[in-house]
């Protein structure tokens, strides 16, 4: 770790102001950023902690039927407070990392980081969430731009995430045995106007929507509706833990399981 200064603003406005400096970087729960700093992979001069901003924490339900989660809300809080309205999301949040990670790591940090194996990007995309920043509202479909890449501008912070609550949903995570991130993760979310399916962990372009499965499931929300759809191994990640073919295969298995579990 290199030496840095730390700011602890208590309002979004102060945080945004502090982040104007080019050498400053937002700090959420630090579960990704702090290990990177320890490895000396980044050298910000200043960290701006978002943990002490009350308006960025908490979970509530909007009149429009969205689950609204403050950008600095830790996973453990989501695991508890989303349980009644959006159990699939609560379950997903409750299986991220270990208790320490869940008590520190935040939804904003996860979405800003957009790790290709992370869980929240999958939920945001599967629900067609709105990513609210200090400056604007970004639709999930426009937000994710490939591995570790998002529509966020320099110094822009995620203040809130609004996820339309589905009629039925399920998240299936097949863990990579070392990191226990998703080797492949699939969220299926059924709405009155159709089904959305998002896949994490598998593609070299990060989280993506599986449109063929969406079409089939929108017509017939059952696992057997997916029987004739195959995923291609092209563009899938191949590494120590699984080949592109294996990941492509898991997408099909997990999507079916998610549908069965949701139905």
């Amino acid at each position, binding site marked *: 770790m290199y030496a840095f200064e730390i700011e602890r603003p208590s309002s979004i406005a102060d945080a945004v102001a502090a982040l104007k400096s080019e050498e400053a970087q937002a700090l959420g729960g630090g579960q990704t950023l702090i290990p990177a700093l320890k490895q*000396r992979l980044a050298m910000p001069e200043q960290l701006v902690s978002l943990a002490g901003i009350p308006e960025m924490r908490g979970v509530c339900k909007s009149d429009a039927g969205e689950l609204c989660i403050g950008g600095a809300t830790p996973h453990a809080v989501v695991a508890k407070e989303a349980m009644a309205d959006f159990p699939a999301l609560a379950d997903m949040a409750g299986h991220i990392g270990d208790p320490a990670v869940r008590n520190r790591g935040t939804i904003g940090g996860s979405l800003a980081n957009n790790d290709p194996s992370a869980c929240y990007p999958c939920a945001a995309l599967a629900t067609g969430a709105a990513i609210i920043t200090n400056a604007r509202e970004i639709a999930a479909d426009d937000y994710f731009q490939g591995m570790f890449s998002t529509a966020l501008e320099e110094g822009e912070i995620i203040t809130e995430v609004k996820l339309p609550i589905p009629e039925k949903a399920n998240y299936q995570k*097949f863990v990579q045995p070392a990191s226990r991130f998703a080797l492949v993760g699939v969220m299926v979310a059924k709405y009155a106007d159709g089904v959305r399916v998002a896949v994490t962990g598998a593609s070299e372009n990060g989280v993506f929507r599986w449109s063929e499965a969406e079409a089939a499931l929108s017509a017939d929300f059952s696992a057997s509706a997916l029987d004739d759809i195959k995923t291609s191994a092209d563009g899938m990640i191949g590494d120590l833990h699984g080949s592109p073919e294996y990941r492509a295969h898991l997408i099909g298995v997990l999507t079916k399981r998610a549908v069965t579990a949701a139905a």
Partner: protein
Amino acid sequence: MPKDNGIGASSKRREDVRFLTGDGQYTDDINIHGQLYVHFLRSDVAHAKINAVNTEAAAAMPGVQRIFTGADFEAVGSIPCGWQVTDRHGEPMQEPRHAVLAHDKVRHVGDPIAAVVADTYAQARDAAEAIELDLTDLPAVIDMKEAAKEGSTKVHDDLTSNLCYDWGFVEENRDAVDAAIKEAAHVTTLELVNNRLVANPMEPRVAVGDYDKSKDEHTLYTTSQNPHVIRLLMGAFVLGIPEHKLRVIAPDVGGGFGTKIFHYAEEAFCTFAAKELKRPVKWTASRSEAFMSDAQGRDHVTKIELALDADNNFTAIRTETYANMGAYLSTFASSVPTWLHGTLMAGNYKTPLIYVNVKAMFTNTVPVDAYRGAGRPEATFQLERVIDKAARELGVDPIALRRQNYVTEFPYATPVAVEYDTGDYHATMDKLEEIADLKGFDARRKESEAKGKLRGLGINSYIEACGIAPSNLVGQLGARAGLYDAATVRVNATGSISVMVGAHSHGQGHETTFPQVIAEMIGIPEEQIDIVHGDTGRIPFGMGTYGSRSLAVCGSAMVRAAEKVIAKSKKIAAHLLEASADDIELKDGKFSVAGTDKEVEWGAVTLAAYVPHNYPLEDIEPGLEETAFYDPANFTYPAGAYACEVEVDPDTGKVTIERFSAADDFGNVINPMIVDGQVHGGIAQGIGQALLENCSYDDTGQLLSASYMDYAMPRADDVPFYAVDHSCQTPCTHNPLGVKGCGEAGAIGSPPSVVNAVIDALHSGGHKVAHIDMPLTPGRVWSAMNS
């Protein structure tokens, strides 16, 4: 009623109180006034020529005291290998120089190039980043079979090739084995990989060097399993410091698993630099450094052939193994694939002819050395896998095939030069069939099938050799040290006892078990006895802890020393009781005269020894302290039978362990609870190897599994509740406690059970898969099912 004191009692591990309450004193807890910190600049490429190391800018950075490079160590000794193996042709192995800091070339990712010593650790690390390196990258050789090819890149330019040795064992049997395989009714062949592992003790390595100028004395605090071995190797071979000027202290050590046996460059560096700078120098490894500098384990590529006659009797075994040494020869690297592997190829079976060939290769990877089991897991795995494959090919029951070929008469001289003193392999298999409820397997398989899962059962036997080792024998085999151990029993005036032992406890629970033995011998409470270990300044010259040797070898030394103490104390008691020493009995902490009611307490006798007012000073010296050295007459041979039941998810290839049972024969058992714990831990590591752990390099020598994000350690939910039993006991015939050793058994016996179980599960689902290399990750199992 179960005992609550002495041998056989499940006494609670007294050391755990300080470990679990944060009061342990580990090497990193040692901070000496004025200490400096060293950071090693390590190679990030696997193979390169070092043209220049420019430290000028770095040396001017804040807090930097001095920067050392390879040039500073040119005149310093090479990190030695402790075992010289002689090859098939009678030639000594090729032994490269291993400098403390790399000079001419770097040979693996993590090879240290420079060492920055500064006032703080951060300053040292900052300055290391300012060092300018001029390296010319060279092609790296990673694959052992590539390394063996004519014209391959050489890891060491001054050696004739990358071959460390080509070992044949027993060379005289070679032709006879070839002939037997030719004539056999059936031959089963299996090619397999024993995957490379990272040891991953919870505590990373640490070293603190200290130098007292006024006395010209060095002290090294280090995370070692064997402080005397480090003193011997570093003092005599590397730095040239005489023993009486060098003290090595290994305080609480947070796990070793073998990788803390060896003498490492960082220890020599801290000792050397402390004298140069006249200030203490401390190094604490980061976890990343541990991945690229702790000696790694296993890494064999093997072809094994098992020949059987028409009645399914084993007639011959032939193996050919490539064993990875990595870039340099670590302390015991050469002995692991040879004397700890070839000698175990007979397993539990009376195969008359065996030939083992091992080609040890240098590659541009981290050195490989002993890791829990060391050579014996590699032997057991290939043997028990090939027997399972043979049973399947022949359509016979795998247990029956094993039983038919078991050694049943002891002592048994194997065709691979060792003699098993005792054992009862049918008894442990009987016990296993009972505790694993093998009768209920078919019903459990049906339940799994109803859930859409494939269930498999894997069983195997194992044998290992512990209690390392008779010095005269290992001397003939190339060991450059004796392998005895030593203990001093110091009885204090009030009757309490300190036992100074050469064995080192880094998780094994010696502080609990060793006193149990003394408590039993004298008949006093365990609490009255403490052991002292881990400090060459306080203990006699013992060789430390590895190879499940502590109780069998050091415990035997302790018994011998205690016997001397008891003999002397009987003389004192005889004087006090005015009787003859021959008539004195010691029981429950009291000396009595046989056939009378005259008695005297242990404490009264010990007091008399130190306050000798009424004492036979003309016949015996005052005081009550005795030392014994014990050199074992043979190895010990723990053995057993293991069973694993798995479920395989046919959709994903994911394996879950449903049941695991272990029936072990460890001879006599001192503390059953601690033995259970040792077996549990060993099995967890074996399951880790079988399903999860994989130290993997890419073609350029970059470590792909360089952190816990990619190196999968077993976690609590990866392992089942175990059924373990050690009630089958055939005591060792040649040590005074009749103990055999239990530290490695779990890690040796379990990998084949897991793999055998998965193969069985796949066959039950119609997948005719002959073998899958470890780790059996979901992806590998799925591809095996679908290819």
